[in-house]
Protein backbone atom coordinates (compact mmCIF):
# COMPACT_ATOMS: atom_id res chain seq x y z
CA UNK A 1 0.00 0.00 0.00
CA UNK A 2 1.19 3.49 -0.86
CA UNK A 3 1.46 5.42 2.40
CA UNK A 4 3.37 8.54 3.30
CA UNK A 5 4.86 9.90 6.49
CA UNK A 6 5.36 13.28 8.03
CA UNK A 7 7.58 13.56 11.11
CA UNK A 8 7.44 9.80 11.58
CA UNK A 9 3.65 9.55 11.46
CA UNK A 10 2.25 7.47 8.60
CA UNK A 11 -0.93 8.31 6.72
CA UNK A 12 -2.91 5.99 4.46
CA UNK A 13 -4.20 8.81 2.27
CA UNK A 14 -2.25 11.53 0.49
CA UNK A 15 -5.34 13.71 0.47
CA UNK A 16 -5.84 16.11 3.39
CA UNK A 17 -9.23 17.83 3.63
CA UNK A 18 -10.70 20.77 5.50
CA UNK A 19 -13.82 21.26 7.61
CA UNK A 20 -14.87 24.77 6.55
CA UNK A 21 -17.65 26.10 4.34
CA UNK A 22 -19.86 22.98 4.26
CA UNK A 23 -23.59 23.51 3.84
CA UNK A 24 -24.24 21.22 6.80
CA UNK A 25 -22.30 18.99 9.19
CA UNK A 26 -24.00 15.93 7.66
CA UNK A 27 -22.64 16.77 4.20
CA UNK A 28 -19.19 17.33 5.70
CA UNK A 29 -19.23 13.93 7.42
CA UNK A 30 -20.19 12.16 4.18
CA UNK A 31 -17.61 14.12 2.16
CA UNK A 32 -14.89 13.20 4.65
CA UNK A 33 -15.81 9.55 4.33
CA UNK A 34 -15.86 9.71 0.52
CA UNK A 35 -12.48 11.48 0.43
CA UNK A 36 -10.71 8.62 2.18
CA UNK A 37 -8.60 11.23 3.99
CA UNK A 38 -7.21 10.43 7.41
CA UNK A 39 -5.98 13.92 8.25
CA UNK A 40 -8.35 16.89 8.42
CA UNK A 41 -7.74 20.54 9.15
CA UNK A 42 -9.61 22.66 11.68
CA UNK A 43 -9.46 26.32 12.72
CA UNK A 44 -8.98 27.66 16.26
CA UNK A 45 -11.53 30.30 17.29
CA UNK A 46 -13.15 31.80 20.38
CA UNK A 47 -16.01 29.64 21.67
CA UNK A 48 -19.52 30.82 21.10
CA UNK A 49 -20.60 31.75 24.65
CA UNK A 50 -24.33 31.42 23.99
CA UNK A 51 -23.84 27.68 23.35
CA UNK A 52 -26.57 27.60 20.70
CA UNK A 53 -24.25 26.36 17.96
CA UNK A 54 -23.20 22.76 17.64
CA UNK A 55 -19.56 21.93 18.23
CA UNK A 56 -17.46 20.79 15.28
CA UNK A 57 -16.12 17.94 17.40
CA UNK A 58 -19.67 16.49 17.60
CA UNK A 59 -19.16 15.49 13.97
CA UNK A 60 -15.58 14.32 13.87
CA UNK A 61 -14.39 11.04 15.28
CA UNK A 62 -10.85 11.68 16.56
CA UNK A 63 -10.11 7.94 16.51
CA UNK A 64 -10.75 7.98 12.73
CA UNK A 65 -9.19 11.29 11.75
CA UNK A 66 -5.99 13.04 12.74
CA UNK A 67 -6.82 16.69 13.47
CA UNK A 68 -4.50 19.36 12.12
CA UNK A 69 -5.23 22.78 13.65
CA UNK A 70 -4.42 25.78 11.49
CA UNK A 71 -3.52 29.38 12.24
CA UNK A 72 -5.71 30.79 9.49
CA UNK A 73 -6.48 34.47 9.81
CA UNK A 74 -3.22 35.30 11.61
CA UNK A 75 -1.30 38.25 10.17
CA UNK A 76 1.76 38.27 12.43
CA UNK A 77 4.19 35.63 13.70
CA UNK A 78 3.08 36.37 17.28
CA UNK A 79 -0.61 35.81 16.50
CA UNK A 80 0.18 32.58 14.70
CA UNK A 81 2.38 31.31 17.54
CA UNK A 82 -0.31 32.17 20.10
CA UNK A 83 -2.97 30.38 18.03
CA UNK A 84 -0.73 27.34 17.52
CA UNK A 85 -0.17 27.02 21.27
CA UNK A 86 -3.93 27.22 21.92
CA UNK A 87 -4.64 24.69 19.16
CA UNK A 88 -2.20 22.29 20.77
CA UNK A 89 -4.13 22.42 24.06
CA UNK A 90 -7.52 21.86 22.39
CA UNK A 91 -6.36 18.91 20.32
CA UNK A 92 -3.51 17.65 22.46
CA UNK A 93 -1.28 17.16 19.45
CA UNK A 94 1.77 19.25 18.64
CA UNK A 95 1.02 19.49 14.93
CA UNK A 96 0.11 22.78 13.29
CA UNK A 97 -0.70 23.96 9.79
CA UNK A 98 1.06 27.28 10.08
CA UNK A 99 -0.37 30.24 8.22
CA UNK A 100 0.88 33.79 8.50
CA UNK A 101 -1.03 35.85 5.99
CA UNK A 102 0.48 38.92 4.38
CA UNK A 103 -2.40 40.32 2.39
CA UNK A 104 -6.15 40.24 2.85
CA UNK A 105 -7.20 40.10 -0.79
CA UNK A 106 -4.86 37.39 -2.01
CA UNK A 107 -4.26 35.63 1.34
CA UNK A 108 -0.68 35.21 0.19
CA UNK A 109 1.70 34.27 2.99
CA UNK A 110 4.11 36.70 4.66
CA UNK A 111 7.18 34.53 4.18
CA UNK A 112 9.44 36.48 6.52
CA UNK A 113 6.99 36.17 9.40
CA UNK A 114 6.23 32.57 8.43
CA UNK A 115 9.89 31.57 8.67
CA UNK A 116 10.21 33.35 12.02
CA UNK A 117 7.11 31.60 13.44
CA UNK A 118 8.32 28.24 12.07
CA UNK A 119 11.63 28.66 13.92
CA UNK A 120 9.92 29.45 17.23
CA UNK A 121 7.35 26.66 17.02
CA UNK A 122 9.80 24.01 15.80
CA UNK A 123 12.06 24.95 18.74
CA UNK A 124 9.06 24.45 21.06
CA UNK A 125 8.61 20.94 19.69
CA UNK A 126 5.79 21.53 17.25
CA UNK A 127 5.50 19.59 14.02
CA UNK A 128 5.21 22.62 11.76
CA UNK A 129 3.54 22.37 8.35
CA UNK A 130 3.78 25.86 6.86
CA UNK A 131 1.47 27.08 4.11
CA UNK A 132 3.83 28.97 1.81
CA UNK A 133 4.35 30.55 -1.58
CA UNK A 134 5.27 28.38 -4.53
CA UNK A 135 8.83 29.61 -4.06
CA UNK A 136 11.60 26.98 -3.87
CA UNK A 137 13.88 29.32 -1.91
CA UNK A 138 11.21 30.12 0.68
CA UNK A 139 10.54 26.39 1.00
CA UNK A 140 14.22 25.71 1.55
CA UNK A 141 14.37 28.38 4.26
CA UNK A 142 11.30 26.91 5.96
CA UNK A 143 12.92 23.49 5.92
CA UNK A 144 16.07 24.99 7.46
CA UNK A 145 13.87 26.68 10.08
CA UNK A 146 12.58 23.27 11.17
CA UNK A 147 9.44 22.68 9.10
CA UNK A 148 8.40 19.01 8.96
CA UNK A 149 6.83 19.49 5.52
CA UNK A 150 6.38 22.40 3.16
CA UNK A 151 2.97 23.30 1.79
CA UNK A 152 3.27 25.51 -1.28
CA UNK A 153 0.08 26.98 -2.71
CA UNK A 154 -1.08 25.97 -6.18
CA UNK A 155 -3.07 29.20 -6.49
CA UNK A 156 -4.68 31.64 -4.01
CA UNK A 157 -6.75 30.03 -1.23
CA UNK A 158 -10.28 29.20 -2.36
CA UNK A 159 -9.62 30.44 -5.91
CA UNK A 160 -9.98 27.09 -7.66
CA UNK A 161 -7.55 28.31 -10.32
CA UNK A 162 -5.46 25.14 -10.30
CA UNK A 163 -1.68 24.99 -10.23
CA UNK A 164 -0.39 28.29 -11.60
CA UNK A 165 3.31 27.59 -11.48
CA UNK A 166 3.74 23.99 -12.49
CA UNK A 167 7.49 24.20 -12.85
CA UNK A 168 7.98 25.72 -9.38
CA UNK A 169 6.09 22.87 -7.74
CA UNK A 170 8.31 20.41 -9.60
CA UNK A 171 11.45 22.28 -8.50
CA UNK A 172 10.22 22.48 -4.89
CA UNK A 173 9.81 18.70 -4.92
CA UNK A 174 13.29 18.28 -6.36
CA UNK A 175 14.85 20.58 -3.72
CA UNK A 176 12.94 19.42 -0.63
CA UNK A 177 14.09 16.79 1.82
CA UNK A 178 10.74 16.98 3.64
CA UNK A 179 7.30 16.07 2.23
CA UNK A 180 5.74 18.59 -0.16
CA UNK A 181 1.98 19.12 0.16
CA UNK A 182 0.27 21.30 -2.42
CA UNK A 183 -2.06 23.39 -0.28
CA UNK A 184 -4.69 25.70 -1.77
CA UNK A 185 -5.85 26.58 -5.24
CA UNK A 186 -7.21 23.22 -6.39
CA UNK A 187 -10.48 23.61 -8.30
CA UNK A 188 -11.20 20.18 -9.69
CA UNK A 189 -9.87 16.64 -9.84
CA UNK A 190 -7.37 17.23 -12.67
CA UNK A 191 -5.65 19.93 -10.55
CA UNK A 192 -5.10 17.42 -7.76
CA UNK A 193 -3.89 14.79 -10.21
CA UNK A 194 -1.44 17.28 -11.74
CA UNK A 195 -0.04 18.17 -8.30
CA UNK A 196 0.63 14.51 -7.66
CA UNK A 197 2.09 13.93 -11.13
CA UNK A 198 4.56 16.72 -10.41
CA UNK A 199 5.79 14.67 -7.47
CA UNK A 200 3.91 16.27 -4.58
CA UNK A 201 3.63 13.94 -1.61
CA UNK A 202 0.10 15.07 -0.88
CA UNK A 203 -2.62 17.62 -1.57
CA UNK A 204 -4.60 19.66 0.93
CA UNK A 205 -7.93 21.18 -0.02
CA UNK A 206 -11.14 22.53 1.45
CA UNK A 207 -13.15 24.79 -0.88
CA UNK A 208 -12.82 22.55 -3.95
CA UNK A 209 -14.82 19.88 -2.11
CA UNK A 210 -17.00 21.93 0.26
CA UNK A 211 -17.97 24.41 -2.45
CA UNK A 212 -18.75 21.85 -5.17
CA UNK A 213 -22.40 21.37 -6.13
CA UNK A 214 -22.11 17.80 -4.86
CA UNK A 215 -19.36 17.83 -2.23
CA UNK A 216 -19.59 14.09 -1.56
CA UNK A 217 -19.09 13.20 -5.23
CA UNK A 218 -16.26 15.74 -5.53
CA UNK A 219 -14.58 14.27 -2.45
CA UNK A 220 -14.56 10.87 -4.15
CA UNK A 221 -13.27 12.44 -7.38
CA UNK A 222 -10.41 14.00 -5.40
CA UNK A 223 -9.58 10.71 -3.73
CA UNK A 224 -9.32 9.02 -7.13
CA UNK A 225 -7.40 11.94 -8.66
CA UNK A 226 -4.79 11.94 -5.91
CA UNK A 227 -4.35 8.18 -6.30
CA UNK A 228 -4.21 8.39 -10.09
CA UNK A 229 -1.71 11.24 -10.04
CA UNK A 230 0.50 9.46 -7.55
CA UNK A 231 0.41 6.22 -9.55
CA UNK A 232 1.27 8.08 -12.76
CA UNK A 233 4.17 9.80 -11.01
CA UNK A 234 5.63 6.56 -9.67
CA UNK A 235 4.93 4.74 -12.96
CA UNK A 236 7.14 7.23 -14.83
CA UNK A 237 5.52 9.03 -17.72
CA UNK A 238 6.77 8.91 -21.32
CA UNK A 239 8.94 11.77 -22.56
CA UNK A 240 7.16 14.52 -24.47
CA UNK A 241 7.86 14.49 -28.24
CA UNK A 242 7.16 17.11 -30.87
CA UNK A 243 5.66 14.74 -33.47
CA UNK A 244 3.56 11.59 -33.70
CA UNK A 245 4.89 8.13 -32.97
CA UNK A 246 2.27 5.52 -33.91
CA UNK A 247 1.53 2.49 -31.78
CA UNK A 248 0.42 0.13 -34.60
CA UNK A 249 2.97 -1.60 -36.90
CA UNK A 250 3.79 0.15 -40.16
CA UNK A 251 4.31 -3.22 -41.92
CA UNK A 252 1.57 -5.49 -43.25
CA UNK A 253 -0.98 -2.85 -44.12
CA UNK A 254 -3.79 -4.16 -46.37
CA UNK A 255 -3.51 -3.08 -50.01
CA UNK A 256 0.11 -1.91 -49.96
Amino acid at each position, binding site marked *: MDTFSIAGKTFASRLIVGT*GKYSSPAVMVRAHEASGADMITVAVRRVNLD*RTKESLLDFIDPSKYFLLP*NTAGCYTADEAIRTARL*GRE*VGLSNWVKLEVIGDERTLFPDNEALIEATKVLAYEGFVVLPYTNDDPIACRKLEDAGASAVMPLGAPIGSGLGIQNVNNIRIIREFSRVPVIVDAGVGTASDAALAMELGADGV*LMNTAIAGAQDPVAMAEAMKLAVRAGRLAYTAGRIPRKMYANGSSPVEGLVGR
Partner: protein
Amino acid sequence: MKIRLNGDPYEVAGPLTVAELLERLEIDARRVAVEYNLVVLKRDAFGRTAVAEGDEIEIVNFVGGG
Protein backbone atom coordinates in the same frame (compact mmCIF):
# COMPACT_ATOMS: atom_id res chain seq x y z
CA MET B 1 -16.24 40.62 39.72
CA LYS B 2 -15.46 42.00 36.32
CA ILE B 3 -13.22 40.10 33.91
CA ARG B 4 -12.62 40.22 30.17
CA LEU B 5 -13.87 37.08 28.49
CA ASN B 6 -13.08 36.51 24.82
CA GLY B 7 -12.43 40.20 24.38
CA ASP B 8 -15.66 41.43 26.00
CA PRO B 9 -16.39 42.69 29.55
CA TYR B 10 -17.97 39.91 31.61
CA GLU B 11 -19.47 39.92 35.09
CA VAL B 12 -19.12 36.78 37.19
CA ALA B 13 -19.69 36.00 40.88
CA GLY B 14 -16.50 34.89 42.61
CA PRO B 15 -14.54 33.25 43.95
CA LEU B 16 -14.20 30.63 41.26
CA THR B 17 -11.62 28.69 39.30
CA VAL B 18 -11.26 28.43 35.53
CA ALA B 19 -12.83 24.95 35.74
CA GLU B 20 -15.84 26.41 37.57
CA LEU B 21 -16.14 29.22 35.05
CA LEU B 22 -16.30 26.67 32.21
CA GLU B 23 -18.92 24.71 34.14
CA ARG B 24 -21.06 27.82 34.59
CA LEU B 25 -20.76 28.54 30.88
CA GLU B 26 -21.75 24.91 30.16
CA ILE B 27 -18.54 24.40 28.21
CA ASP B 28 -16.97 20.94 28.00
CA ALA B 29 -13.43 21.48 29.29
CA ARG B 30 -12.13 18.60 27.15
CA ARG B 31 -12.96 20.46 23.95
CA VAL B 32 -11.45 23.87 24.63
CA ALA B 33 -8.19 25.61 25.40
CA VAL B 34 -7.96 28.49 27.84
CA GLU B 35 -5.57 31.39 27.72
CA TYR B 36 -5.29 33.08 31.12
CA ASN B 37 -3.71 36.54 31.00
CA LEU B 38 -1.89 35.60 27.78
CA VAL B 39 -0.59 32.29 29.17
CA VAL B 40 -2.02 29.07 27.74
CA LEU B 41 -3.21 26.82 30.57
CA LYS B 42 -2.72 23.08 30.60
CA ARG B 43 -6.06 21.34 31.07
CA ASP B 44 -5.08 19.94 34.46
CA ALA B 45 -4.46 23.52 35.68
CA PHE B 46 -8.09 24.62 35.13
CA GLY B 47 -9.14 23.42 38.61
CA ARG B 48 -6.34 25.19 40.44
CA THR B 49 -6.35 28.48 38.56
CA ALA B 50 -8.41 31.10 40.40
CA VAL B 51 -10.19 33.78 38.38
CA ALA B 52 -9.52 37.27 39.72
CA GLU B 53 -10.88 40.77 39.08
CA GLY B 54 -9.56 42.19 35.81
CA ASP B 55 -8.34 38.87 34.40
CA GLU B 56 -8.28 38.44 30.67
CA ILE B 57 -9.50 35.02 29.66
CA GLU B 58 -9.78 33.54 26.20
CA ILE B 59 -11.63 30.29 25.61
CA VAL B 60 -11.16 28.76 22.18
CA ASN B 61 -12.26 25.61 20.40
CA PHE B 62 -12.03 23.99 16.99
CA VAL B 63 -14.29 25.26 14.23
CA GLY B 64 -14.48 24.46 10.55
CA GLY B 65 -11.47 25.58 8.53
CA GLY B 66 -9.13 24.66 5.74
